[in-house]
């Protein structure tokens, strides 16, 4: 029931103004085919939560270029090839909230775990904590951080079974398992779909309970920045 026939079917119904969690660390784990489908689908005014703000002209960068994104919440927008974001930002055409990478992960985990807020040691005394509540606990200072919940998560995994159980490949795992827990609707593109029972239950990384839609998509051969 979770399997979809096409990436277009997989992204159906994403509403204008949605908060969309997008997996990937740079190119690794980026759900390219789902993002391309989202561009075709047409939803606009989106808030994107992702570690970066797009590379080159593909994936997240293509979505930004298409003018569908109102705000980006990320840890590291600036990269050697983030020119699409850079131009939009300098032109004042996109909002940016910079979040320390660990807070990005932990705030999404909090959303997935039902935590209302948490005291975090990161960013104490820095500009990124300005205006936030702080508290001293056992002699250490903390900043109060709130969950980041997505309407939708778009992630990429290596293999899924028909129940939505997922395994990933190497460091392409990154934000996928966390985002899967934090969104109302989690949509996953995978290289391979197998029967239930084909994935060793001890090795499942994302249990199917966190997954709503699965679609097989050819793994794209994308560039690795450092390998250019």
């Amino acid at each position: 029931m979770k399997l979809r026939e096409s990436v277009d079917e997989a992204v159906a119904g994403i509403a204008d103004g949605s908060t969309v969690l997008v997996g990937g660390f740079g190119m690794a784990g980026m759900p390219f085919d789902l993002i391309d489908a989202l561009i075709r689908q047409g939803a606009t005014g989106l808030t994107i939560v992702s570690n970066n703000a797009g590379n080159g002209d593909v994936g997240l960068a293509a979505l930004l270029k298409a003018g569908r994104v109102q705000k980006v919440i990320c840890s590291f927008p600036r990269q050697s090839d983030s020119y699409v974001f850079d131009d939009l930002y300098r032109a004042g055409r996109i909002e940016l909230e910079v979040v320390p990478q660990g807070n990005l992960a932990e705030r999404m985990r909090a959303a997935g775990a039902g935590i209302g807020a948490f005291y975090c040691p990161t960013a104490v005394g820095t500009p990124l904590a300005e205006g936030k509540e702080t508290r001293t606990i056992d002699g250490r200072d903390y900043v109060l951080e709130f969950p980041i919940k997505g309407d939708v998560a778009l992630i990429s995994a290596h293999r899924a079974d028909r129940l939505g159980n997922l395994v990933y490949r190497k460091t392409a795992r990154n934000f996928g398992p966390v985002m899967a827990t934090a969104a109302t609707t989690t949509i996953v593109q995978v290289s391979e779909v197998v029967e239930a029972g084909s994935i060793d239950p001890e090795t499942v990384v994302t249990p199917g309970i966190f997954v709503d839609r699965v679609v097989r998509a050819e793994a794209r051969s994308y560039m690795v920045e450092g390998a250019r």
Partner: protein
Amino acid sequence: MPLSTGELAALVARDIPAGSYVNLGIGQPTRVADHLTPEQGVILHTENGMLNMGPAATGDDIDPDLTNAGKVPVTELPGASYFHHADSFMMMRGGHLDVCVLGAFQVSVHGDLANWHTGAPDAIPAVGGAMDLAIGAKQVYVMMTLFDKQGRPKLVPKCTYPLTGLRCVSRVYTDLAVFDVGAGGAVVRESFGITREQLRQVT
């Protein structure tokens, strides 16, 4: 003689205790890895979800699904493990890393770190994992030149650049000297081609 970047990286590598779990951030500090010996048994962590990361990948070993924090293709060593981002940053923020080595724009003599933002009004802010590493690792080493391109000391009484973390750096490795920093201020451990008197004048 001032140390070259390679010599400095070797110096840092020498000081990392055997068996340590270490994060080398991105950029220059990653060169420390080239000087670690197998006997040290140091295990490298990369924030994007891996322990026991190996050297950079070349040729057919390049796998787009296996990169380091700088998005450079790397390899895995026997005994590696992969994990998701919340677990990876749990290692950093929960105090499980023994050492991290970071670059810096400025470090204060009391150990404040500024390495994420120049403060330039037109710069696009980007922090990545710098703040998490700064407050999380048991020992935070900084590796930098002692002076910036304008000749101003980067080890300062008080940082003027936006902070990454408060009182988090324990040691600063520079081309001209190594310092311990902290509550008592900066203490020179060793110097290279500069007298202690000269150091006192500039820092």
